[in-house]
């Protein structure tokens, strides 16, 4: 027996006294052992390896960083032309196919006031609002039901709040489509590639059998660019950090009255409409 109880306590006391708790003490006793232990996967990790995130990849220094991404859509500025430009930009940069009929794919689209906000019923509302065309897209909810129901974690939430899809893990069960209360998800009922008008080579095309949706342009944020729709909207769509009280987005939310889609469901949508 190398170390008995008494000796161990003594050693622990000395380590603690010198502030050598945890890994430092461990390092002193057995140099290098911890690095190896950290890299060695546990049996659980061997069976269920982590597929997301790889700390060895250096992030782009230009990448936009936010604690909680959100979007403000200014309905005073959003004309149908600007909205169409935003939609077109999104469709182009993400190779969203144009499939006719009810098996179509939509990431971001235009809809009516009563469709976007069925609970905010008011027949005498300002016609400018009532007859306006609203942009519908994934709300990147703080409490997303789609993530809750996915049986494979193919849809997941990043720390900055973005709700993402892993197209290589999705089994196409479409539970997330039943779970989403905003109709923001589309399923590839067929091979989408023949329906892509002009392919954008820097973004992957999808395959039949998986679900897809808006990603808040995570691929653009990673290289320091704003989401394609915000960039193309002529200032009508403002993207920013909801957690940053000094952001332009928060400034807008303070200055004007905003509404969110179906807030009564407790999903905490992060797309705000200034009306």
């Amino acid at each position, binding site marked *: 027996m190398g170390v008995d109880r008494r000796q161990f306590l003594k050693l622990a006391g000395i380590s603690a006294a010198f502030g050598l708790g945890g890994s430092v003490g461990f390092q002193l006793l057995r140099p290098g052992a911890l690095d190896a232990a950290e890299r060695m996967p546990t049996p659980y990790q061997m069976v269920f390896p982590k597929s997301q995130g790889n700390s060895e990849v250096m992030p782009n220094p230009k990448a936009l960083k936010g604690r909680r991404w959100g979007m403000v859509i200014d309905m005073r500025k959003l004309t149908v032309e600007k909205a169409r430009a935003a939609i077109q930009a999104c469709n182009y940069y993400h190779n969203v196919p144009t499939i006719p009929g009810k098996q179509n794919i939509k990431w971001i689209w235009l809809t009516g006031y*009563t469709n976007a906000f069925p609970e905010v019923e008011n027949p005498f509302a300002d016609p400018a609002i009532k007859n306006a065309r609203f942009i519908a897209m994934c709300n990147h909810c703080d409490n997303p039901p789609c993530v809750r129901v996915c049986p494979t974690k193919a849809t997941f939430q990043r720390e900055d709040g973005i709700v993402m899809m892993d197209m290589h893990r999705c089994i196409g069960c479409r539970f997330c489509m039943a779970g989403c209360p905003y109709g923001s998800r589309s399923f590839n009922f067929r091979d989408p590639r023949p329906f892509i008008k002009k392919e954008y080579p820097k973004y992957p095309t999808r395959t039949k059998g998986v679900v897809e949706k808006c990603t808040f342009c995570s691929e653009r944020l990673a290289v320091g660019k704003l989401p394609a729709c915000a960039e193309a909207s002529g200032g009508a769509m403002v993207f920013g950090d909801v957690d940053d009280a000094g952001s332009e987005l928060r400034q807008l939310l303070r200055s004007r009255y905003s509404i969110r889609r179906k807030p009564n469901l407790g999903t905490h949508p992060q797309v705000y409409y200034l009306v």
Partner: protein
Amino acid sequence: MLEKALSGSKLYWTWLICLLVVIGAGFGAYLVQYNKGLMITGMSRDVSWGFYIAQFTFLVGVAASAVMLVLPYYLHHYKTFGRITILGEFLAIASVIMCILFITVDLGKPTRILNVMLHPTPNSILFWDMIVLNGYLIINLVAGWVTLEAERKQLPPPGWIKPIIYLSIPWAVSIHTVTAFLYAGLPGRGYWLTAIMAPRFLASAFAAGPAVLILLGYLVKKLTRFDPGKEAFETLAKIVCYAIILHIFFFFLEVFTVGYSDIPSHTAHLKYLYFGLHGHNMLVPWVWVALGCGFTAIILLVNPRTRKNLKILPYACVLVFICTWIDKGMGMIAGGFVPNPLHEVTEYAPTGLELMITFGVYATGILVLTILYKVALGVKAEEEAL
């Protein structure tokens, strides 16, 4: 015991070949779906689950209903069911196999199905459904096979099987409860967002399952020398009677809450189903037929003279089957998706290929059922010959 399935009459083999032909056709249709994707179905962006998931939901109920034989026999020593419990357990096996197949053909990426186990996600109800369905399959396979083997050897079943049989009772309730939870926990779907979903599922299951068993009992009686006995039919008929009344009662509870509160996101679905919405009314005749069948069945089953009349009973059972199959299948699934979260109406109807795949899965289940029943009835015939 399986060798009993290898010898049979001309009728038996013809039946198996017919089933294999349907399975072949269904498999062919599935190959088309596998190559082209789910575009060959009538499903859409708005109605993203359809006929497959409807059949799955209905058959989970049929599978769960085996408990209606197991419970009276093993917990209350109701001897009359002793002879037919195995038929219930084997029906459960065939039904669960169909459930698993329906889930599989519904997947966009069936080759990735093991991702559910490679990336276990306890917050997803589908993960739990996978566990309870597979567990129920294994429990019934073991319990059914072991008790039948003991019966063949003219021995009492081994002691270790008892706890497994007892476990099958709450487990049967669990499969249908978890299946109800697939729907009943989704925030944006008013038609499904109801705590009575699981009891309603169970009530319709305990009506549909025993009704199917009665019909199978008639077939067995006609085709083999095995007679389940008048008393077994009568008791099953009573179970069907109580359960179909509960089913309709629960439906009216739903109608009251939805109708009296009059909250649009909840009423819209019932309006669509029973009266049509914005001129869309494809399912209206179906749901009224279901309701009519349910009421007629109740009249036939409540009245002792018609219930005990073995000539009328099968018709009542067919009515119960139609009622629950429409209500829990198409009504429940399509009704939940129409209107969509943006209050737009997209209707759903299955396509020809979708129906062929569905028939193929049903034929597979019936093939399994035929073989299992052949074995069980072979053992029983052997026993009676002694």
